[in-house]
């Protein structure tokens, strides 16, 4: 019996992994844009970034998914998204808002002396950001970022409630038919746990590659 249900669960796992990867990419992009927006000189951009962050952090993820799934297809929006798109956009927007605060903190944690040294060397502002500030900020963002990615992974389970065939959906499906709730849900929990540990491992390796020193200044 187990041998028959495993392929179904694995299929769901692949969908979960797919959504996690795509939604993380979207979330990272939005997080960076929103963080820069919040730190920008123009009040309009700051206001826009704050609006995005407060709105998507303040509302429930499931409500956002339901809204995208049930309300968006209706007038006046008339946008019909597939469950997959709902999942990626919903998760990306939600997690991106949390990521923005992490990214903002990371950008602000780069010591002011680094920026001053770059100014003193006349390094132009864009290069200053990409070559000096961003690499150091990303190192600081990896710690809290890892936790956020695991939150995203857990959040993917909710897409099963908007009919997307991810791991949670398949697990539920299988249990409805086989009544092997103990085994199936047990295996499902183990798979999620394993995926979370993969994220942990990947981020730890990334941190080791990126960090050469906590600070280049006087100790």
């Amino acid at each position, binding site marked *: 019996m187990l041998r028959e249900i495993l392929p179904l669960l694995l299929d769901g796992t692949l969908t979960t992994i797919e959504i996690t990867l795509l939604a993380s990419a979207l979330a990272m992009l939005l997080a960076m844009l929103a963080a820069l927006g919040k730190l920008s000189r123009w009040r309009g951009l700051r206001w826009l970034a704050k609006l995005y962050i407060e709105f998507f952090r303040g509302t429930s993820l499931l409500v956002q998914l339901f809204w995208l799934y049930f309300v968006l297809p209706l007038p006046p929006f008339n946008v019909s998204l597939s469950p997959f798109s709902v999942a990626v956009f919903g998760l990306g927007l939600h997690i991106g808002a949390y990521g923005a605060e992490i990214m903002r903190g990371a950008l602000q944690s780069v010591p002011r002396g680094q920026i001053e*040294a770059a*100014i*003193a060397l*006349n390094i*132009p502002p864009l290069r200053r950001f990409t070559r000096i500030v961003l690499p*150091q900020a990303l190192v600081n963002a990896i710690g809290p970022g890892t936790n956020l990615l695991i939150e995203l992974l857990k959040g993917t389970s909710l897409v099963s409630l908007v009919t997307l065939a991810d791991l949670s959906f398949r697990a539920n499906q299988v249990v409805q038919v086989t009544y092997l709730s103990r085994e199936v849900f047990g295996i499902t929990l183990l798979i999620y746990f394993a995926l979370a540990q993969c994220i942990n491992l990947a981020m730890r390796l990334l941190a080791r590659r990126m960090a050469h*020193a*906590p600070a*280049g*200044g006087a100790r």
Partner: protein
Amino acid sequence: MTASPMIRFRQVSKRYGSLTVLDALDLDIAPGEKVALIGPSGSGKSTLLRALMLLDDIDGGVIEVDGAPLTHMPGREGLVRADERYKRRGRSGIGMVFQNFNLFPHMTALQNVAEAPASVLGLPAAQAKTRAAELLETVGLGDKLAHYPSQLSGGQQQRVAIARALAMRPRIMLFDEVTSALDPELCGEVLNVIRRLGDEHSLTMLMVTHQMGFAKEFADRICFFSEGKILEQGSPEQLFGAPQHERTRTFLRAVMEAS
């Protein structure tokens, strides 16, 4: 001053809220002159350096470098505050070494020194690296090119910082308490590099320092700062040998006792 001054501070003022840090300060520095700025904390020495490096804006007065205004630019009627582009042009002849080194921690020593020549002067990567390697050789770190700042001692990091500033071929070098963050036994190696710089190049150098011994033997002129103004200035023999003001005497006594 027979030749025109390299740096001219005219009535320079800076305030932080209600606190006046620089008080209508006047100072001329000749080309190739080595000037040490000494004085108690908060007297405005570092602020003056940072204003010259265009890291902070001044509230009053003008700074000129080599005859041209630095902090201001020619406007329709007289001088107006310099914009970013003008500032960047002015900054290009000045280099600065910081108390906390401020090396880029994610780059090797070579990359630290080569970064600005490559990205600002547009030097091709190979050329920038060669220049960087040569400079690191002259500060005695030719064998540490691939080391990261975390793998270097404080004295070594500061020497990399000096090489990094020199890579842009400045005519003026600013040193802001560059040994204050170092353990005493590491100061010597940094001061030696600075001494050699002074001998070999025709650089104009301004140093904020607490190292009175070094200032005495190295500087052409010492300026004593107090409450945003230069209270006294003169050759090392004049200032250390026969200080005119009571405050200067008190300061020198306290510093000598501490060392």
